[in-house]
């Protein structure tokens, strides 16, 4: 453990600071709570409906999230390779070829979604 326990300090300080400031402004500020203050802010236009699970949003947000998951997982696999590369590369050039194949597959995937016009907004 050792040093890891110190990671808790910024957590405590940062969150403590944030909640303290929010509480302070809650006590210091006025509390008029006019009727218009408490409605959703829509530039003064009458509110038609609130967002709910029935509301639709653009499918491309969903596609971006899925693509992010796929590519981010690939990024995770780059890290162990990057970590050992300097010490192993000179010993075994095979590692280089292996990683080249992996990155090529990654690029093929990117090329596929590119041609499928998923990335066009």
């Amino acid at each position, binding site marked *: 453990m050792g*040093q*890891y*326990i*110190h*990671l808790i*300090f*910024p*957590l405590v*300080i*940062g*969150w403590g*600071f*944030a909640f303290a*400031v*929010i509480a*302070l*402004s*809650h006590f*210091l*500020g*006025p*509390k*008029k*709570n006019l009727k218009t*203050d*408490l*409605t*959703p*802010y*829509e530039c003064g236009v009458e509110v038609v409906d*609130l*967002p709910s699970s029935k*509301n639709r*949003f653009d499918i491309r*947000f969903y596609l*971006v*999230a899925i693509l*992010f998951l796929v*590519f*981010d997982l690939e*990024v995770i696999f*780059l*890290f162990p390779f*990057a*970590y*050992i*590369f*300097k*010490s192993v*590369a*000179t010993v075994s050039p095979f590692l*280089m070829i292996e*990683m080249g194949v992996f*990155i090529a597959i*990654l690029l093929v995937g*990117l090329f596929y979604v*590119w041609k499928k016009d998923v*990335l*066009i*907004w």
Partner: protein
Amino acid sequence: MNELIVHFGIAVLLFAVQAQIVPVLIWLERRGAGFIQDRLGPNRVGPLGLFQPLADALKLLFKQDVVPTQVHTLFFLIAPAVVVGLAAMSVATIPFGDTFTLMGQTYVLQVADVPVGLLYLLAIGSFSVYGIMLGGWASSNKYALFGAMRASAQMISYELGLGIGMASIVLLYSTFDIRDIVLAQQAGLLSWGIIQAPWIFVLLLVTIFAETNRLPFDLAEGEAEIVGFHVEYSSMKFALFFMAEYMHMFVGSVLLVAFFFGGWALPGVSYVNLTSWLQSFIGGSFEIASVLTVLLQLGVVIAKTFVILWIFIWVRWSFPRFRYDQLMRFGWQGVLPYAILSFVLTAACVYVKG
């Protein structure tokens, strides 16, 4: 026990530095905008308008903290705290200075000197999407929700570039420990990352711009025209979102300094010699001299950071904002292939150098 207290002290010091950077940066941004646009900028409150951010903060503190009736109160309340808390947590593994001795024990000016600092940073950085999404969703406002969607789609798109850029850094230095990365650059100007691999610097600079939602990537909240995820927030909660943005800018810049500009390294300056000179100069204990040296290193890091922060401001007032389709196209068809290319290029360089 002593060790815990000293580290808590370091954590408080670094949080104070980070929180104090924010008003200075706001002042610098507004004066810088004035300078670039050939006007004065704020100059009424205090000398050169230096107390303007303080006055703004006081004003926000005394504003009404509106909680509209439709919001999910708990999440609405914690979202700004999540954003600021995560920004504060992300400095934990960044070194701001070398070793110093206190009461017979040696410490480093770093909250936690963990061997997986870079991975920790990446994890905490990814979490900040949650704060924005939580704030936008809990507001129960259509525009806030759309703003949050836009912001998170942007952030996750550019996070890929950031992740691969970080992997390239690991490849270059073959360590996850940011302190080791800085120590590897102490051997003079030629060992600095900016000389070793300038292409990663370009990649990380662009992705950090996008991650911090700075212009030209500020689609999340464009102050002047676009309604962003924090439209329902008021008073200090609103200020916390902005504070977090500036804190993230600071963290990103410190990170760039640590990766590419040698952290506290100054070409031609030997800190060991400096410590012994200081010791003979004040004619006393080694401990005081080492603490003074470390504070000097902190100053050097912050001075270098401000150079990068000035680039942030300079770009903000020089370039127009992207359109959303341009932003996504640039992220997926520009930054991502470039990131993969830079990874391969770095691997080739490391391989050739042996």
